[in-house]
């Protein structure tokens, strides 16, 4: 368990760094959210000093307490799941995020899983059939992996012509576990999911191909073939060994996919975290932006941890060390 415990330590440290950055940034950067909120309040009426203090209290920027006390208060709030108040939605940030999160997580999990399975399978095939026409998939995959997610999304919108409908259509059906609602969600999530799958699969494909080619030169693969094992089994032996480094590098992949999905959600008006992040940026709703950043970071760290656990489970060497 030691290796795993170390990774958990790294992730806790990463979470601490991210949260501290998100605490310090608004406090050290000139033109902080308080000024913005005061300006907003002044538009509707005169914001006197009591009003300014109230805003500072609300945002946790009480200048009369020291930075350290604010920091402790910030952690106390986080411990209670209190991420502040969103002025644009007039609701607690945490409850807002809880309502956005299922959309994002659903899309992320499904799309990443499909992309991973499809990408690795094609990558294995590309390595195995090297030197034949399959090599022509390589430049195409390179092109797709270099394409920004949101541009791919725009192209799909152009081809299939579906955007801006999600938010409005779904509310036509009653929310809940009934067929029209679920069908509506699926029909509207297909294009965003397809975008993420295509873009992410290309990356997995290239990584898997390169690993597979290296693995195919290992002696055990040669022995497996020399023994006369059927090709399918030889491929299986090689593939599951080539898979290990790909999973070990999942950290980078998941960051890219999450970053890509934020933008894809914006293009498709998909009501997940990314879309609302864009919304909050436009409205200068700093508490919401900050809360979403914290949650995205935690989601990515959790995904990393999951990949680590999977790695320990499937790699006997890691299992022995762990």
């Amino acid at each position, binding site marked *: 368990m030691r290796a795993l415990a170390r990774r958990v330590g*790294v*992730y806790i*440290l*990463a979470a601490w760094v*991210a949260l501290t*950055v*998100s605490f310090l*940034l608004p406090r050290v*950067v000139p*033109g902080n959210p308080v000024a913005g909120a005061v300006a907003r309040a002044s538009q509707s009426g005169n914001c006197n000093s009591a009003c300014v203090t109230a805003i500072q209290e609300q945002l946790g920027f009480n200048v009369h307490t020291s930075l350290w006390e604010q920091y402790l208060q910030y952690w106390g709030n986080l411990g209670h799941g209190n991420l502040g108040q969103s002025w644009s939605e007039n609701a607690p940030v945490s409850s807002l995020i809880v309502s956005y999160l299922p959309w994002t997580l659903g899309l992320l999990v499904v799309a990443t899983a499909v992309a991973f399975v499809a990408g690795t399978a094609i990558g294995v095939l590309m390595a*195995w*059939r*090297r*030197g*034949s026409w399959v*090599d022509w998939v390589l*430049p195409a995959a*390179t*092109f797709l*992996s*270099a*394409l*920004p997610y*949101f*541009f791919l999304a*725009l*192209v799909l*919108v*152009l081809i299939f012509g579906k955007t*801006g409908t999600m938010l409005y259509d779904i509310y036509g059906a009653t929310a809940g576990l009934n067929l029209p609602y679920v069908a509506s969600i699926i029909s509207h999530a297909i294009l965003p999911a397809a975008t993420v799958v295509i873009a992410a699969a290309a990356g997995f494909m290239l990584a898997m191909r*390169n690993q597979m*080619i*290296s693995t*195919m*030169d290992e002696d055990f*693969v*040669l022995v497996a*073939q020399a023994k006369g094992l059927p090709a399918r089994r*030889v491929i299986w032996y090689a593939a599951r060994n080539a898979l290990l480094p790909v999973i070990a590098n999942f*950290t*980078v992949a998941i*960051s*890219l996919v*999450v*970053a890509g999905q*934020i*933008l894809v959600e*914006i293009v498709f008006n998909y009501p997940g975290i990314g879309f609302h*992040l*864009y919304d909050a*940026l*436009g409205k200068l709703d*700093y508490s919401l*932006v*900050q809360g979403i*950043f914290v949650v*995205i*970071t935690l989601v*990515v760290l959790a995904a*990393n941890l999951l990949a680590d656990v999977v790695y320990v489970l499937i790699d006997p060497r890691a299992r022995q060390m762990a």
Partner: protein
Amino acid sequence: MTINSTSLAGIPPVAGPTAELVVRPTRVLRLPRSPKVIAGLVILGVFGVLAIIGRWIAPYSPNATDQQNWVRHVLVPGTGPGTGFPASYYPLPLPPSAAHWLGTTVFAQDVSSQLLAATQATMFVGLLAAAIATVLSVLFGVTAGYLGGGTDEGLSLVANVFLAIPGLPLLIVLADYMPSAGSSVLLVAAIIAVTTWAYTSRTLRAQTLSLRNRDFVEAARVSGESRVRIILVEVLPNLIPIVAASFLFTALSAMGAYVAIAFLGLAGSPTSSPPGLWNWGEMLREGFANNAVRGGWWWWWAPPGICIALLGTGLALLNFGIDEFINPRLRAAGLSRRTAKKAGISLRSTLGMTPVAHRRAVAIMPQVTAASAWTTAMATRRSTPSSTVTWCFGAARCWGWPARAAAAKPHWPWLPSACCGPRR
């Protein structure tokens, strides 16, 4: 292994090693002939030239507008003569024409001029961020890998923490709190670099760890060279392929990040104050925000996206070339079916057909800097001609297999020529 030995026998044997060997430790950069590398270089070169001369060959200023002639005026239904309302018009962008090669925007601006101006900023940010990130990753990775111990633990921890924090969201928050920062390409590049250096650092650390105990580094250490000199002269040159590949990869992701935050409107628009620079993400943002996709005005939003994808492909292809240089096994074209046929090898399976003799030699091609190492190598080679491969470091040209050597095209020919056996 499915080589038809009868057909192998038909190949005239390659002449054995002669006394006259041309050793050229200085590597001569000849034009690489791999189609991937050539395509990558051409793409990168074209964009590089456009980035430099773009502002002079642009037909108009990217900000120039001509509300009279550069848009189509469409009458708003229900206004104008006969309706009792004063005529009111809304503008529509012009499709590509001789005057505007890529048409105009709805703001009556020339798209091709914007595209040329945007190339410069986008490439500049990408390359600058990659440069900063590379310096950071070399500093952290090589130091951690070479020094080891507590330093290694500490530096690796920093790298791992940075690796785990997702880059783009951090970038968004940073750029959001510093709105003026978005307009400064230097600051944007620095922020991107800080969020992307960690991965390369980890790779470099691993490679340095394996280099640290090689004989030539050991020799330098024993002969009393200073630590800094060993790192700079013995270790670092051997990391160059990895650094180069990482530079390209980082440049690619930095450009992606810049375009992404510009698409979110965080990189400063050219109309804001202080004005930001034109970049591809900003063009996409304006197009997307003004319904260019639904309006069918593809000439507005498609060119910047295609440019990003093309430039990205160019960088990725070059990266591939370097990867194949580092790991010759990846060279798909090393022995294509056609070349194999020409050389008289029957190729039934792809398995086991990359005869790289020594596994430890595959990961990297150590360029032995110490002259003594060269002489040692040469001496070994003369005494045992059959062991060519053992010191050829798995370079593709010289895998010491006559049929392969005859069939393989030199793809990355800046290898020491002596490596490839007798010159023919």
